[in-house]
């Protein structure tokens, strides 16, 4: 969590393509973008912004494996060590019978683990105050935001000019 307030200068765009073009130009001008907001995921934006691919699916794999091991080893222990019982003449360690539950628990752990990871790394959750710049971003506006804390008047003017030149329909500031 940032320990200081962010003084955000942001531009609102009406079209995602205009915004994407603007992001491209910002990157080539070496302007440091704080974040980009949109009402829906804009494809093609991540490589332009230089966002690394999310590792959430790797987390999913790890959680899933934990589920597999938990289920399989637990059932094995119960039916071979703890309280072996003969069911229908089958051997104590009846692996085929263990498969459905092992699969289900793999999926369960993977799903719950990934979802919890997702909310944790995004900093989202019940009761989290939304740090929105403008209410219309979740409606139909696309937003490029710069953090101008500690920057000079000239630099801020430069950013303002950039936003307007690149097609922003509005440029505003907000303290987050």
């Amino acid at each position, binding site marked *: 969590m940032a320990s200081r307030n962010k003084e955000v200068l942001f531009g609102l765009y009406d079209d995602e393509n205009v915004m994407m073009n603007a992001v491209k130009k910002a990157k080539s001008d070496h302007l440091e973008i704080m974040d980009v907001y949109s009402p829906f995921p804009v494809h093609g934006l991540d490589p332009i912004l230089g966002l690394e691919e999310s590792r959430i699916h790797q987390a999913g794999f790890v959680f899933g494996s934990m589920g597999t091991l938990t289920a399989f080893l637990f059932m094995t222990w119960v039916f071979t060590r703890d309280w072996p019982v003969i069911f229908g003449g089958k051997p104590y360690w009846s692996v085929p019978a263990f498969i459905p539950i092992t699969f289900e628990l793999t999926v369960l752990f993977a799903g719950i683990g990934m979802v919890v990871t997702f909310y944790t790394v995004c900093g989202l959750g019940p009761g989290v105050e939304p740090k929105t710049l403008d209410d219309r971003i979740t409606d*139909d506006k696309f937003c490029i935001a710069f953090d101008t804390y500690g920057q000079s008047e000239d630099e801020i003017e430069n950013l303002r000019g950039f936003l307007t030149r690149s097609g922003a329909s509005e440029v505003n500031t907000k303290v987050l």
Partner: protein
Amino acid sequence: MGHAVVSPIREPLITGNKTYHQITEDLCRPTETAPGLSWIIAFVISLMFMTFGVFCIAWTIWFGIGSWNLNRTIGWGWDITNFVWWIGIGHAGTLISAILLLFRQKWRTGVNRAAEAMTIFAVMCAALFPGIHVGRAWVVFFFFPYPNTRGPLWVNFNSPLLWDLFAISTYFTISLLFWYTGLVPDFATVRDRAKGIRRKIYSFLSFGWTGSAKHWQRWESLSLVLAGIATPLVLSVHTIVSFDFATSVIPGWHTTIFPPYFVAGAIFSGFAMVLTLMLITRKVLHLEDYITIEHIESMNKVILATGSIVGVAYLTELFVAWYSSYTYEQFAFFNRAVGPYYWSYWGMMACNVITPQLFWSRKMRRSIFWTFLLSIVVNIGMWFERFVIIGTTLARDYLPSSWSYYVPTWVEIGIFLGTIGIFFVLYLLFTRVAPVVAIAEIKHILKSGGNQYVGPHATHVLHEPQHGGQVDHSFMRGDHDANLTAAPLVPVVSDPPNFERTRVEVVEKSNDYDNDGNYIGLKNDLTKVEGIGPKVQEHLNNAGIYTWNQLANTEVNKIKNVLEAQGGVYASMVPGTWPEQAKMAHEGRWDELMKWQDELDGGK
């Protein structure tokens, strides 16, 4: 997905020439307005059913399973029939969300949110039955393997009944998580439009969502992986439910066809229920632009396919029973057709085998009346299928001295009606509290599925310029229609017989920008507007304005902002007439424009 080329014969998935804002308005409106009379009536009736159901459940727990008509021969009756029926219905939601996502079927976005909600409510109704049919419902937690003081006594992990427990619990959890993950951005949309206590509630529900690019990236990754694991999950759940029967030794139950047969049947009945709900929902909430005839037809095609699979499964059962020469198996099917429950068997056959075949006809697939009627028929037919499997088989098994007959008591019927009540109460509440259609996902496909971009009546015509993005010089004073009749890069597709076309016949790209963000769409000569020179045109291009149409639709203030940002001589320009001039140029009213320009000076 916005950069993919969309085939010119694809029908649009969103009609009504919607903008992003209109989508927000249309889809948030049901959560922001008071319910109409039809909602209230439906809610009251469902609530009555639900109350009666709760009363019957309490009666069952108080007086015991003796209040049902189960006996030693027929140990499973309406309880397990209803259980399998509800679980089957729940399968459509996951299929639409998960499997159609993996198959990149964009049409799923119109129905996935409601279908997922339907899954969750259906699974809740289903889970009731194993809970109450055990007799001692107050120790139903014994099902779960937890360390206890009875040994510890563990559960039988080798039993399909327990596999069922894990499968359904997992299915419910994953469906809930998947549904809610999708809802968070939509709740944020509702939050940002709300005031007062509603804002607080939706703020809580939306978890602080802001729409940040990184969050969206993770959200998409999460959705994809959840879809990937939900797909084998949904297939496994109904397979495991089928194992409840297939792993027994009863003739008519002990067959290996059950897993695929049950899964196909579940998808079949699930889609029928989705159609029943969606046809009513789209009418009452005025969502016909988002749940179009294309969506309905696609779902009917799935019903046709899965219904045919179910039909083939029936025939396979009959064939193998005959081919095996196994007396008991042969009798099981003979009994179904002519035994004491013959009426349920023939009802099932008529509803499930004959009626879906009607969807071979395109007219039937696209008819709302027939779709609604058939969806109800399929739901009834699939209930009968489960009853045929359970009731008829148990009534006439190996030992004739055990043969019996089963008729449900009012308590059992009441519980079934109660679950229907619970389902509709929850669904009706859902339609008022949450957006019924996935808002963010619909916006995401607008440019590749909206009727102004895609389809035979598309108006937002996009050319692939011949020379890779140069300004169009083919305009000459006398040749005003050059832009519209310029030869497209790809030969024009000749019209398929069933499609009407407007006079614009070009290959439509769904986007003006290539994958690197370079503009490759149509460019008009903006210098035709009095007041715009080549430099100003360049500045307008950098701001995303390339065509006369775009300039015509841009507010003067925005043009002013762009000019003022350039400073110098540009800041003093007055672009007041530019949009109007551009409109004339776009509409080809050159004589008018030139006459006006003679009066203007510098575009003032």
